[in-house]
């Protein structure tokens, strides 16, 4: 179980998250939705250790990991595929996977990755900067496969991709869910995300405004929360 308890966090410019609590139970998919600038990315950064907290706690399987560095959290089984393209542009596909994989286990991981994403196998030697956006995103997503994490944090992995690729990516996410991974999913494709999710949190201006199961809310409510925020 991954728990954020009463997190307050922000940047030098100001506080962004206020008293945010989110629980990702084992094997569950949790969707985190909200308008632009709500603090979703910030929440994921806190959860993976990229951003320190001002108050509150982060617990992984009951162990307090508050304010640990990202590489330490990664060793606790937390895998964060960040917003944007989570790849090293100057490295080849193989070398990107080498860094995503646990140190000892590279050969097997590479095989695993190329069986899940055959297209990456074909491009093993290519410098990842030169791949298409969709291919790059798949390479970023590869991290969730090869590092064998327990908790996967995904930040808008479908951003800027063609609908067909988005579909493909959601298939991978379903696949990960079936494998029993816990996921915290930030998505702009609300309908798709809800289909996948066991629990939903809605965030607005740095606080959680709704927490519950997908059945408890209509898409309309969500759209309203988005629009409400924009109107204000």
């Amino acid at each position: 179980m991954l728990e954020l308890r009463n997190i307050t966090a922000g940047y030098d410019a100001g506080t962004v998250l206020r008293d945010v609590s989110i629980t990702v139970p084992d094997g569950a998919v949790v969707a985190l939705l909200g308008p632009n600038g709500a603090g979703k990315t910030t929440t994921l950064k806190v959860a993976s250790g990229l951003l320190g907290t001002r108050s509150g706690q982060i617990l992984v399987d009951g162990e307090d990991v508050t304010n640990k560095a990202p590489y330490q959290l990664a060793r606790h089984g937390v895998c964060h595929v960040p917003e944007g393209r989570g790849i090293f542009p100057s490295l080849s596909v193989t070398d990107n996977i080498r860094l995503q994989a646990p140190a000892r286990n590279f050969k097997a991981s590479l095989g695993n990755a190329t069986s899940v994403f055959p297209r990456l196998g074909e491009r093993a030697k290519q410098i990842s900067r030169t791949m298409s956006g969709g291919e790059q995103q798949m390479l970023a997503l590869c991290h969730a496969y090869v590092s064998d994490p327990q908790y996967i944090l995904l930040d808008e992995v479908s951003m800027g991709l063609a609908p067909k690729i988005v579909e493909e990516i959601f298939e991978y996410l379903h696949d990960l869910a079936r494998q029993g991974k816990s996921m915290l999913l930030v998505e702009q494709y609300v309908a798709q995300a809800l289909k996948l999710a066991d629990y939903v949190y809605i965030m607005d201006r740095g606080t959680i405004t709704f927490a519950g199961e997908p059945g408890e809310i209509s898409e309309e409510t969500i759209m309203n929360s988005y629009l409400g925020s924009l109107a204000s």
Partner: protein
Amino acid sequence: MTEFLVFLPSGIAIGSVYALVALGLVLTYKTSGIFNFAHGGIAAVAAYLFYELHIRQGWHWAPAFLVSLLVVGVLGGLLVERLAALLGSAPTVMVVVATVGLLVLLQSLMTAIYGSANIFMKSYLPTNTLFTLGRFGVTVEDLAVTGFSLGAGAGLYVLFERTRIGKSTTAVVDDPNLLSLQGTNPAMVRRLSWIIGSCFAAVSGMFLAPKLGVSVNTLILLVIAAYGAAALGRFENLLLTVAGAMVIGVMVAYLPSQVSKISSNPLVQNLPGNTPFLLLFLVFLVAPTRLLTERGVANARRTRPIRTFSRPVTYGGFALLGAVLLLVPTFVPNAEMTQYASTLGYFIVFASLGMLVWMSGQISLCQMSFAAVGAATAGHMLQHGISWPLALLIAGAVAIPVGALVSITAIRFGGIYVAIATFGFAIAMQQVGYYTSILFGQAQRIDVPRPEILGVHFTEIVPFYYLCLAVAVLAGAVVLAVRASRLGSLLRAMSDSPTALAAHGANTTLIKVVVFCISAFLAALGGVVISGVPQNASGALTGPFSVTVSLVMVAVLGFAGRRPIASPLLAAILFQLIRIYPPFNTEGFLKYQGVIFGLLAIFVAISPALNIRGAIARVSSASGDRRDPSAGPVRARLDSAPVKPVALRSTPVGAEPELVGSGKGAGR
């Protein structure tokens, strides 16, 4: 052919040491995006420490070697890593100021302790001949040095190509936060590569000590060989770097014998020694732009524009300054006037440098070489009976094509490569150029007499001071005119967004070259003034036109501020004038002024990252963005470097006022 083979072993021995130096340089540049101009300084410090322990303290060479390696390679590497981390988001010019500051610091420190003379040191490895190749015997020493260097190179190659940690060294430049998310501590990766890099430098310094003697200046100049090799490896490819170093080593060993057959002209004979420099330029000349990318610039913080004073303050200030400068001879004894006159000369050179650095974001490490061109040209003109004002203008004009030549090759690759090219040029001038008859000639000296114009005897120091003042005012006016001109506004636009400017059809390369040429012109005027004080000019290593002076000037200007006139003036005063007044007229200050200047330059370069005010605020509320703890508070800005196209973002635009989205790195 057989003759070539004869030189092969010694060439490979030299080349393998060059390779070691170059590998350290490329490795650290690759990993941190920081090109370390102090790399040769590290080699020198190791050589001195080794000398101290082995010769002066009488230790056996093995423990002495090991201790030097630990202190300079490991400890020094860790220290430089801290410096590099604090420079992580500094603009290129400040990175150069800091590493040049470090070089000046180390050089001054070593010279203060051990003097500037080359210290002879006996070979510590056995020098008995193992076997002979042609006329040359291969000694144990050669074999050990070559074997160690090649072994280290091969080990590094395997590390880089085959291992996870090796790949991390590239990844950490791309995105340290992502690396951390993937379970690798970026600070550890950086430390490792700086330790390896510094150890390589330290070892090469100790290897070279018995061959070249222990001398900070020799070792600093020697890194140019490493630059040549690194350039052949495109500053990133380790194998090509080693190959390049071998080629350079063999050419340096072999060519002199060939050249002496062709010509006995000492200039021609000196050419092979400059193979590295020539190769460096050749690479800059022929390499396609995409092959040499400037590293680390995508994260660069933009410098805030300087606060402009209101008109009355500006004019009032200039009037006051003018009055003081005019009245100087009334309150300064004649004996000290020479110092004031040369301060004006240095002001001109500083102003030329300041214009280049603060207005166009380029940096030159060969400003005194341009000044030397000016001084020498004026000397020749005056000898041919040309009047002083005309000689001055011709001197400036001659420097223009020189400036164009130096800058044009490197400019298209970006700021750091300009710095590298100018450093190479300064060294080549020092070693060969100054000896040519068009500059100072074999005698290394040319007379630059003070003139007599329209019956005024400028040969007297006070009238000459006014003549210098006139030239200084002219130079200052040129700088201000450039600022106010269309060129100035183009430059400002360029520092805001080079890509946008290029998209509007402006030729950014041309703009940069033009500024460089103007700067060279002004520096040459400064050179004429400086040489007019002693009425002669020379290219001596201890003289005003040496590489060292160019470097020290960069350090001094680095902390003197970014104002077009006031900062160069302050720099010139600090550099040239304060030494005649207490408390700076002591031997201790003169000895250690390089240390002080270097420290100040480093401090100014890293101070934005130290975030002193922020640190105080943080003490009260323990919080903040500590994404990559190794990198200090600067790294907090890193994550926003890749700009995400989101239309509805509610982020206030001013949230990150200091960040250049992709700016200089946009070409990649």
